[in-house]
């Protein structure tokens, strides 16, 4: 109980610290960034990059790859984590949990934003929700929804549009999102400045292989390979991948041996963790844009060429393929001054007949909510979704 309270308090303070960073003056934000850039030396950069590749429980491999003693790596990680410069979270391989990723971008008539948000949050199974602006002024949501109930979600959205909760929307099923690990190839350690080599990126795209990366392949099946205990362990790792087995054992009221056994024999053996999010924001929050792009390509080869260049770009957060289409969902994080150049780079790929068209929405990071996999709906080894109850709730929200 005391452990639960401690974790809840810690989570609250982290969230509060983040919101304080958003609301603080520009000078304070830049001061925070200045501290961050001070600690960003070559060794810490290698550790950040290595954590994305090896994960937080393989310090010896990480130490070997960066050619630094394991004790030094462990010490630096501990110090960075304590100071709030580093957080690592596990990204789950959702198809192995029987879940499909999906994206919903909605437009709403003025005054209905709160109702729309409540209606979407009421669905459950969302992993990220925030307000969005641009081509769509409304709510932006990412789901990890049970594959067996996918038709019900589509029907619910049609009903929500019918109730005028949203004036228009786009909805796509997507593959698991591929995380871009921190990459410092375009960072100058002497001047502590990021380089944006847009022309180099365009020529990289033109020369890139025409084979789609394996991680963007559409899943052949969505099979539930977990039980409830695995799911509870995974949701803890989603929040903090550094969390020790003994602490997880206390939270889940399991034995530490049980947690260790499940981690190695279930989670690792079945590859239930797709990759890791090494959460560092490389540029000041208040002068940067977080955007979501939907990019349509001429053909699969063009999509493959483009996707093959993304894994080492510091301005890309993650990306996933839209199922059944030659299209890509891509989340970007760029300094505001570089954003026009980013758009110009994409436009030049349109001129070269690789990209058919694209659109983007700005994500409002001050109103975001993010949550773990919806383990509360997992019963008797299957996912539940009470469609009738959800429709009833939707009608109540909309006052029908």
């Amino acid at each position, binding site marked *: 109980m005391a452990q639960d309270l401690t974790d809840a308090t810690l989570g609250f303070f982290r*969230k509060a610290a983040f919101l304080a960073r958003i609301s603080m003056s520009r000078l304070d934000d830049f001061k925070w960034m200045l501290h961050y850039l001070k600690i960003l030396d070559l060794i810490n950069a290698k550790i950040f990059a290595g954590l994305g590749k090896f994960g937080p429980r393989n310090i010896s491999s990480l130490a070997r790859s960066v050619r630094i003693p394991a004790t030094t790596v462990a010490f630096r990680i501990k110090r960075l984590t304590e100071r709030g410069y580093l957080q690592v*979270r596990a990204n789950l391989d959702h198809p192995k949990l029987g879940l499909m990723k999906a994206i919903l971008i909605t437009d709403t008539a003025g005054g209905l934003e709160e109702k729309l948000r409540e209606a979407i949050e009421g669905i459950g199974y969302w992993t990220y929700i925030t307000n969005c602006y641009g081509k769509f002024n409304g709510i932006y949501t990412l789901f990890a929804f049970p594959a067996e109930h996918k038709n019900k979600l589509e029907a619910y959205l049609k009903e929500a549009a019918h109730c005028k909760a949203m004036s228009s929307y786009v909805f796509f099923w997507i593959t698991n999102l591929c995380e871009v690990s921190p990459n410092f190839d375009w960072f100058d350690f002497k001047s502590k400045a990021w380089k944006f080599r847009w022309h180099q990126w365009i020529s990289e795209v033109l020369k890139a292989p025409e084979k789609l990366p394996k991680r963007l392949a559409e899943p052949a099946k969505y099979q539930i390979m977990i*039980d409830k*205990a695995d799911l*509870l362990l995974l949701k803890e790792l989603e929040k903090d991948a550094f969390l020790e087995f003994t602490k997880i054992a206390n939270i889940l009221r399991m034995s530490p041996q049980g947690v260790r056994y499940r981690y190695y024999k279930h989670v690792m053996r079945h590859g239930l963790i797709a990759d890791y999010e090494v959460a560092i924001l490389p540029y000041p929050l208040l002068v940067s844009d977080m955007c979501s792009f939907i990019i349509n390509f001429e053909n699969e080869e063009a999509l493959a060429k483009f996707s093959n260049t993304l894994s080492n770009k510091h301005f890309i957060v993650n990306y996933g393929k839209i199922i059944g289409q030659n299209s890509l969902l891509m989340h970007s994080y760029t300094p505001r001054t570089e954003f026009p150049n980013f758009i110009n780079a994409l436009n030049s790929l349109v001129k070269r007949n690789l990209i058919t068209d694209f659109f983007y929405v700005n994500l409002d990071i001050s109103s975001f909510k*993010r949550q773990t996999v919806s383990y509360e709906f997992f019963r008797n080894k299957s996912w539940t979704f009470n469609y009738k109850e959800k429709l009833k709730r939707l009608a109540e929200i909309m006052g029908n």
Partner: protein
Amino acid sequence: MDAKEMKALHAVLICLMIFAIFSYTTTALRPVFQQDNNLMLEEKNTSYEFPIVLQQKKPVPIYAADPIDGPGPH
């Protein structure tokens, strides 16, 4: 030392050895046996049921998914 004393000494030494072996197996190796026992219980769960050791504990009440504080869309 005569033969009687030698026999008595042997008897005492043998008793001490038996006691040492007994205490070692019941104390030092206990965690190892217990761990093996736990693993055996879990190994039997090929269909991913809760292990018996875990079933004895009350499950945590769950009402909603847990919030995550990172602003990145995932």
